[in-house]
């Protein structure tokens, strides 16, 4: 997960009151269902940065002697700003899948149907597993967690649609302009035998 996203996620946890370092980790995990792996070192480093930049400030220790931090006025304004600032295209991570398929599409020796099917099967496996989790999540479960699961499910849905589209478009182009020579890649045989177009 990107550093800035962790930073904002942690800052958002301060909205309902002062916290200590390890508590942030527990709450972040609980809210995201563990779906975003953040190690404890990263939590403390991020907390240090938030304090250094004046978005949170130490407010003494609790009864167990843990150092507590609270969001500052500046931090609260920054958080409000973050919520209303859309994520722009350049903030999104580049997708290896997009690059793989875009490259495969223009190489006539690559069996695009096989490349796409491998990914489709994997994406569908993830879809099944996330759907399992989503089905188990009840109304009493954390809203953050169910929305994150929905995010993953809708993301996979659009990925699978895009895979269908990429395959169909590539095959149509190749049909119009047949490839030179036999296929070089894709000697693997998935199930009984490959359907050839």
């Amino acid at each position, binding site marked *: 997960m990107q550093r800035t996203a962790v930073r904002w996620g942690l800052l958002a946890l301060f909205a309902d009151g002062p916290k200590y370092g390890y508590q942030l980790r527990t709450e972040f995990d609980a809210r995201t269902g*563990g779906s975003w792996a953040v*190690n404890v070192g990263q939590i403390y480093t991020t907390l240090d940065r938030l304090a250094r930049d004046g978005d949170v400030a130490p407010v003494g220790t609790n009864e167990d002697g843990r150092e507590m931090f609270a969001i500052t006025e500046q931090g609260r304004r920054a958080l409000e700003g973050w919520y209303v600032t859309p994520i722009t295209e350049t903030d999104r991570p580049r997708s290896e899948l997009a690059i793989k398929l875009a490259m495969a599409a223009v190489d006539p020796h690559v069996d695009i149907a096989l490349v796409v099917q491998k990914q489709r099967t994997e994406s*569908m496996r993830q879809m099944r*597993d996330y759907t399992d989790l989503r089905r188990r999540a009840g109304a009493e479960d954390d809203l953050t967690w169910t929305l994150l699961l929905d995010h993953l499910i809708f993301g996979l849905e659009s990925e699978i*649609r895009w895979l269908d589209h990429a395959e169909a478009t590539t095959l149509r182009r190749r049909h119009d302009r047949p490839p030179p020579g036999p296929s070089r890649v894709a000697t693997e045989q998935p199930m009984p035998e*490959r*359907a050839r177009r």
Partner: protein
Amino acid sequence: MSGPVLRLTDVERVYQAGEVSVRALAGVSLSVRPGELVAVMGPSGSGKSTLLAVAGGLDTPTAGSVEVEGVQLGGLDPTAVAHLRRDRIGYVFQDYNLVTDLTAAENVALPLELAGAGVRSARSAAVAALEEVGLAAEADRFPDQLSGGQQQRVAIARALIGGRRLVLADEPTGALDSQTSIAVLKVLRARIDAGAAGVLVTHEARYAGWADRTIFVRDGRLVDATPERDDPRRLLGESS
């Protein structure tokens, strides 16, 4: 009996159109256990619907075998196939296919009455089945007094009435919006979890996610299938 409810072995279906023969299914094997829902995905014309028709005894394979609860369809005469369809197999279609002149309860009771059950016992079984899909209060309504989602839930209740343990669903959410589709899938899933077996043909990956496995059909063949489940938490990138 814990064997598969449905078993297709090397099923082939060739249609003859004049000089041309079309292989709609070219050697498909598939088995579905009790408590298992298998989704079938693939482009239009890939053989999904033929697969469902053959599995349900509505169409006859030109080679290979179809077995429903251990009974080989190929060894039966047409009357016996019809009886087996009535007693063992339920269908759910995109357009619900309810009888418009019958109430919800009468629709659900119909397969039992056709099989010779008394009106009263068929009715009480139908009302119980409607209760399972959350429609007890709608038992005496006619299809045109029900929403699309409710009609589809009636169709699922009908599909699994009596001793039927196999439901074959062809795009059951095709005519429904997203929220209603989820409600229908919940009902279907609950019936599967209670021990039925199901095959779900769908274009929607998000709905296929409700199945235990997805198989991919292309040009009449199974080209791939999702593996069995493992711990989904592994997907989420362990954080401990």
